[in-house]
């Protein structure tokens, strides 16, 4: 890239100077010199815009990837904020999600087959752990038609909070595919995550472990 800049700019500058010095000090020669400088400035600006654009596109938001790495390394990273957008205009809102319960944040899309398979299990969990655990359905709003998402929720009678995430939320949570499920403790930190479909047994054991840990923390306090 630097070489390109060097080769692109190097000939431009001498041309501008040679025109002004070589030709007579008449208006045409002067205007060519000014034109050369303007072209040089414009092309440099375009190059800067291009480089910045590519850098922004390539770098992106890496916080989600860090999140997954932290969980795998055994840390409990802070869970990103939950979006306030919901799948339905009416129904449970983000504000209605209790802060003193463990959360199951399940990312889904209506076209995803495994999401379809695990939906009944999530309903089962939501009922069985009522009062201790809240299931939150995170619909991938940037990849799923809203009408399809609503149809999916109606089909499975999902009555837990259904939020509609955008690309920023996907990046923040580091979600690459669907489904993906995060367990968030009452301290607002992620204790575990499952990449791909989750069965009821696994989810129960993860939740029981998290609830036990919190009970232990409370006893210790």
């Amino acid at each position, binding site marked *: 890239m630097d070489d390109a800049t060097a080769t692109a700019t190097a000939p431009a500058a001498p041309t501008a100077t040679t025109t002004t010095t070589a030709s007579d000090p008449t208006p045409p020669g002067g205007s060519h010199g000014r*034109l050369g400088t303007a072209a040089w400035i414009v092309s440099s600006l375009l190059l800067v815009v291009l480089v910045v654009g590519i850098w922004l596109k390539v770098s992106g938001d890496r916080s989600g990837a860090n999140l997954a790495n932290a969980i795998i390394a055994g840390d409990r990273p802070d869970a990103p904020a939950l979006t306030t957008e919901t799948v339905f205009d009416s129904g449970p809102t983000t504000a209605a999600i209790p802060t003193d319960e463990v959360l199951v944040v399940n990312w889904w899309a209506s*076209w*995803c087959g495994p999401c379809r398979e695990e939906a009944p299990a999530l309903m089962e969990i939501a009922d069985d752990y009522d009062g201790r655990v809240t299931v939150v359905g995170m619909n991938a709003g*940037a990849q*799923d*038609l*809203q*009408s*399809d998402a609503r*149809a999916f929720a109606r089909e499975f009678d999902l009555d837990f909070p259904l939020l509609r995430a955008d690309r920023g939320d996907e990046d923040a949570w580091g979600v690459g595919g669907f489904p993906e499920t995060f367990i968030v403790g009452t301290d607002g930190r992620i204790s575990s995550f499952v990449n791909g479909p989750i069965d009821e047994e696994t989810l129960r054991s993860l939740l029981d472990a998290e609830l036990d840990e919190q009970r232990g923390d409370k006893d210790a306090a």
Partner: protein
Amino acid sequence: MSQRLDQVARVWAITAFVAWMMLVAAALGSTSNVAAAAATEVPDRPRLEQRRDNPQTTVDDVSSTVMCPSCDTTLDQSNSPAAEAMRVWVTEAVDAGWTEQEIRDGLVEEYGGDESILATPRAQGIGLLVWIVPALIVLVAAVGWVVLMRRWRRGSADDDAQTRSGSSSYSHASGSPSKSASSTCSTGDTTSPS
């Protein structure tokens, strides 16, 4: 003669066979697409509002101007499940007589107002830049080209004049027309009549 006829017949037969195979493949392709669309139809979704009696556009036309939501390609380049779901919706909108613009607007709304679903951004706000900047670049390049060409032409004309004045005896000897004579005249050649 008969050999040549044989050759022509063979070429014809092969061409007809290939054309026939392409036709069959195209027919199979379109029917399988229809089957896929029917299979993935969403049962609990209300039908889209019927806006006109006749289709205003085609699924193919729309598919090349919108993005597959889960991949970095346009819709017509993708068969991912997310793209299939989108195609079902677009097909339904085309059947309901929506125009291409209405479908594009509808898709932006369906995907939470995310305009990155459009392959070509709308010509408003920051999206306007995408349309203006290339035109501007072409314009600047054209002006630059004209300026450069003029300068080159003037430069070569000056060079010509210099060469001619330098080798005036050659141009006289070769009996070139009055143009070179006048150029030698202007450089102050005393031999030619004023």
